[in-house]
């Protein structure tokens, strides 16, 4: 079994409640596993922290999108109205900045929103139609009422029997190997 490590994605343990999963994730970290992931039917507070994932770049990407959108919006209006085709409308200054605020604001929001969503998807590496966890039949319940913890094969401490034992010790309801067919 252990010879085929390259074809093994990891070992998956199944739990009944979010509390059990949270406790299991903490124990896995304490046991020294680094490459673990959890799968839950809804977001669970503290779980990302428990599997060792703290910082996300989504807010920063959103900020960049917002600032970029705002500058683009104002720059566009300034350039069109004062540089490219300056035209006197009712004696208003060419750079009538108060009138440029609404469009600047809208493009700020648009830029931030698009960056936020595209950034979130890109960091999550979505779309990703194939993933080894989908090979486990019981995993479909991850979108209903089952909570899964996976210790991945790339973890330096990884060892199938050791992981299986670990899951049994913390009384996972079900333990499976996750095969990678690629």
């Amino acid at each position: 079994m252990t010879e085929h490590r390259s074809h093994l994605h990891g070992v998956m343990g199944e739990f009944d409640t979010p509390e059990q999963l949270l406790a299991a994730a903490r124990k896995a970290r304490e046991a020294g596993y680094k490459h673990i992931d959890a799968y839950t039917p809804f977001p669970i507070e503290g779980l990302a922290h428990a599997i060792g994932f703290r910082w996300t770049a989504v807010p920063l990407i959103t900020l960049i999108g917002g600032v970029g959108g705002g500058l683009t919006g104002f720059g566009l209006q300034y350039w069109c109205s004062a540089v490219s085709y300056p035209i006197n409308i009712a004696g208003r200054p060419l750079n009538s900045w108060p009138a440029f605020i609404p469009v600047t604001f809208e493009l700020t929001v648009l830029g931030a929103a698009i960056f936020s969503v595209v950034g979130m998807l890109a960091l999550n590496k979505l779309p990703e139609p194939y993933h080894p966890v989908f090979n486990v039949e019981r995993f479909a319940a991850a979108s209903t009422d089952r909570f899964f913890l996976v210790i991945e094969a790339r973890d330096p401490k990884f060892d199938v029997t050791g992981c299986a034992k670990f899951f049994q010790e913390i009384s996972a309801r079900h333990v499976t190997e996750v095969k990678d067919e690629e």
Partner: protein
Amino acid sequence: MSTTAEPRGMRPLDPMIEPGHTYASVTDKIAAVVLTRPLGIGWLAGFALTFSLVMMLNIAVGWLITKGVGIWGINIPIGWGFAIVNFVWWIGIGHAGTLISAILFLLNQKWRTSINRFAEAMTLFAVACAGLFPLIHTGRPWMAYYMFPYPSTMGIWPQFRSPLIWDVFAVSTYGTVSLIFWFVGLLPDLATLRDRAKSRYQQVIYGMLSMGWRNSARHWHRYQSAYLLLAGLATPLVLSVHTVVSFDFAVAIVPGWHTTIFPPYFVAGAIYSGFAMVLTLAIPLRKAYGLEDFITMRHLDNMAKVMLATGLIVAYGYFVEFFMAFYSGNKFDVFLAEQRLHGPYSHFYFALILCNILTPQLLWISKVRRNVAALFIMSLVINTGMWLERFVIVVISLTRDFMPSAWGRYSATFWDYAIFVGTLGLFVMLMFLFVRGLPAIAIAEMRELVHETEEKGHQ
């Protein structure tokens, strides 16, 4: 739900979700509407009716494009008729969806959970109906791209000092952000449908739409971050959209339009009509698909309270319009105020007061708020009232300009009505398709709500 926190002597709050539900039962119940429930005769009949209205819309718009806007009732001086009334009405209806999904999310109002998904869908469809009107109102919709700043061979640019151009940016941004907010919310639910789908056809479609979402904790973490940020962005956006729409009027010098109360009063009116539309949709939806466990009396009661509150803001807006007209002493403004009461369209104004101010006062009574039939009728009355409000604003002001020689009359033609009723058909048809194609209630959020309710129960 724990009821101990309620003040003594008051009726305990209805639950946000009926007790006894588990993660699996909420998932089953909501997903079954999409995946397993057969098409009923009611759905087919409703779809057929609304589809035929969309065909009527196609004919009416086709005829409009062939003949030009002369087939409408607009004339000089009443250059803005039904098209603009309908535009403002539809875009206002959309606002409740964003309010529920974004503002109530930021305010941590848990009751939004079971109504946010279809309210957001309502927003999208209402914005689609709204967007049609300025487009066809240009008279030459194939030239509509003139409104966007693109490097044309003529070297000219849009007039960025004009509220009409602000409107183009506000509405298109609003439509785009609403769409991506809705899609982000749908992502985990599409994955749920993919995992439960039985037929190959469903698996492939939901599989592609869900982008391989696998409920990973890392994904959820970034997802929640993005969702919160989107809610924070959508909140000022929704307030800005109807503000900009009101600038279309308020920046003009026409009496009855040129008032500073317009932005807040338009936003309140938008939310008012939007919540009325959410009720109009929610009441039949929960009945038809047996979703009373999820869309409970608590939701209907809360929505009625929001309508009452925003209705009072709107009433204040009407009062301020009159007050400012007389307080300013501007004879054109005073004249216009009198025209609303005594002019040729005064029956519209009185109908508006009846629908928007007097009838909703019944919502103070708890028995009315808890009577589903009464709420449904009330929601229709308020939607009518808000449509009349936009008619009063657009048409009465234009018929009574500064000079008597510029006065006129307006009456809508068959084609005006055909296009308006056609967009109603389009809106309802899209809702029909939506409830059978996508989960009408956010499943992942409902599971979260079950979890939170259980935790509260243990405490």
